[in-house]
């Protein structure tokens, strides 16, 4: 078991180094020297320029610069934002819970609706319900989510006034961040009105971000269930007189869940990528909106650090799914 985990972890190291290299050359591809960006239009004397370059290590050979960069990253130093002058890691850690809260809630939404819909569609194969689920999920999969978000705002926020247009919480409330998760923080502070407000703010972004994963989960569940339902052991279970719900719930679903769980794990990347659009539409104060603003402000260290940190979290989640998969399914663990 330990050996399996260690193998998987060691396979991730080159990928991580590659990502680090990619983000390292990223900042060098940007037109303009980092110092020129910092100095702006005021100009600078050649001596001061050389001194600055020396301070930032830009006079060293490229491979030394890269090693220094990796060294700093491994020590949690992701550079300093050009605009706020805060460490990039601090900014990331402050904003990440907002993105995570939204992503988890979207995943929950997608799973809670997608799983039953996919199962029912498979069981009632060829029915109107099946065609409906498949049609809707293909539409969801094709949806430009930035437009979908606008439509929902137009309908639910503007026309009906049910949900707020943007942000995480009404301006009426101030909640001291404890965990960074607004739903938990408001409950811990005992502010139930604020909790309701946070919940109302979460609904539309959750639907928008969850739409594509919902479509993927529903389609995947359906096809996995269809495959399993054709197996001999399902016929055996029926033959020995088990009820339909027991056959589907106990025998079929368990085996169909394995690919579905993998797909849910793989959606993490989609969720963090989709967060860029969703957070921009709803002014959700998370990583996605921060990255887009960093691009607008030409804050390249923030962009560089943010990309590396997001990629690292995606790799970490994929690794976790991989290992969990091995734990759950001994056949994979012993395969190699």
């Amino acid at each position, binding site marked *: 078991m330990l050996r399996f985990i260690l193998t998987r972890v060691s396979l991730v190291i*080159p*990928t991580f180094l*590659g*990502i680090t290299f*990619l983000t390292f050359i*990223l900042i060098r*591809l*940007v*037109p303009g020297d980092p110092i020129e960006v910092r100095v702006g239009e005021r100009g600078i004397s050649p001596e001061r320029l050389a001194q600055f370059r020396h301070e930032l290590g830009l006079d060293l050979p490229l491979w030394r610069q890269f090693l220094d960069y990796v060294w700093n990253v491994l020590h949690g130093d992701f550079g300093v934002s050009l605009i706020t002058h805060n460490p990039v890691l601090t900014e990331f850690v402050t904003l990440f819970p907002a993105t995570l809260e939204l992503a988890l809630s979207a995943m929950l939404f997608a799973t809670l609706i997608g799983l039953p819909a996919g199962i029912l569609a498979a069981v009632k194969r060829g029915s109107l319900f099946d065609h409906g689920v498949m*049609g809707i999920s*293909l*539409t969801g*999969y*094709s*949806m*430009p989510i*930035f*437009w*979908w978000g*606008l*439509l929902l*705002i*137009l309908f639910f926020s*503007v026309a009906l006034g049910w949900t707020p247009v943007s942000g995480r919480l009404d301006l009426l409330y101030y909640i001291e961040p404890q965990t960074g998760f607004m739903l938990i923080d408001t409950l811990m502070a005992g502010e139930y009105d604020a909790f309701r407000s946070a919940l109302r703010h979460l609904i539309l972004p959750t639907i928008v971000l969850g739409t594509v994963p919902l479509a993927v989960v529903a389609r995947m569940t359906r096809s996995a269930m269809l495959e399993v339902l054709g197996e001999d052991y399902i016929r055996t279970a029926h033959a020995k007189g088990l009820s339909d719900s027991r056959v589907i719930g106990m025998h079929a679903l368990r085996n169909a869940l394995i690919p579905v769980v993998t797909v849910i794990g793989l959606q993490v*990347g*989609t969720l*963090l*990528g*989709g967060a*860029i*659009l969703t957070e*921009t539409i709803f002014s959700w104060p998370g990583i996605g909106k921060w*990255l*887009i603003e960093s*691009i*607008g402000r030409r804050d390249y260290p923030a*962009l560089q650090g943010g*990309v590396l940190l*997001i*990629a690292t979290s*995606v*790799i970490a989640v*994929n690794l976790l799914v991989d290992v969990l998969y091995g734990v759950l399914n001994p056949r994979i663990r012993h395969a190699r």
Partner: protein
Amino acid sequence: MSASQSPAAAPVSRPPHPLLEFWYHFKQNKGSLLGLAVILAITVIALFAEWLAPHDPNIQFREAILTPPVWADGGSWRFILGTDDIGRDMLSRLMYGARLSMMIGVIVVTLSLAVGLAFGMVAGFFGGMVDVLIMRVMDILLALPSMLLAVVVAAILGPGLVNAMLAVSVVVIPHYARLTRAAVLAEVNRDYVIASRVAGAGPLRLMLIVVLPNCVAPLIVQATLGFSTAILDAAALGFLGLGAQPPTPEWGTMLASSLQFLQRAPWVVTWPGVSILVTVLAFNLLGDGLRDALDPKLKR
């Protein structure tokens, strides 16, 4: 499905032409036929936008700013889908936008398919260190969320339609590379490949003439689905201000530039979104149908 499945029900000695057989399987799927019809219609609109569009997409009718569509109060037949905030005809802009979207699809798919195919072929054929190196790089690209990678590449290259197309192409290359490599690995040790190797065929001939035609089915499906990804992602970049710049009538850019009129004139935001959705949906439907028709495992 009825029992009379076989296309060669009559006593025919020769099997039907592969294309005919493909068409037989393809037309079973009504959804993908619909997708194909929609794509053909959009292609016609894109090609003949000059003649089909009622107005020039960039002419501003100052007297007709934010005219609603023809069926709403105050609408007129002059501007069937209404006008935008500076009085440009929505329908004409959407038609020219179709041209841009189809062009984005064609260029992105061609570019990423060519590069991905080359990488995948080389990796699958030569194996060893070359394989490890190429596939590791592809894994790294895959570890980044695609939207994030596209945004970063577009931010480095600078905003603009061409750079947005490059950004989206880079993002999808790994998919083609992986698919090609897998297909090549499945074929490369077959007898017919060994036979032509023994007969003295060089690596280039083996790759392009012997093996490639047998790996083409999954690539066609992926390329069709690639159209929808390309159109969707390029529109998203346009929406974020990193893609085509105004006044280019690209659908995502149109959406972003009329955002502040969302409440007063919902149609300026509705139509570009509907256009994106319909086009992307059509390509996804077609891709699904192609997969069913081309995948021998699913053939009945």
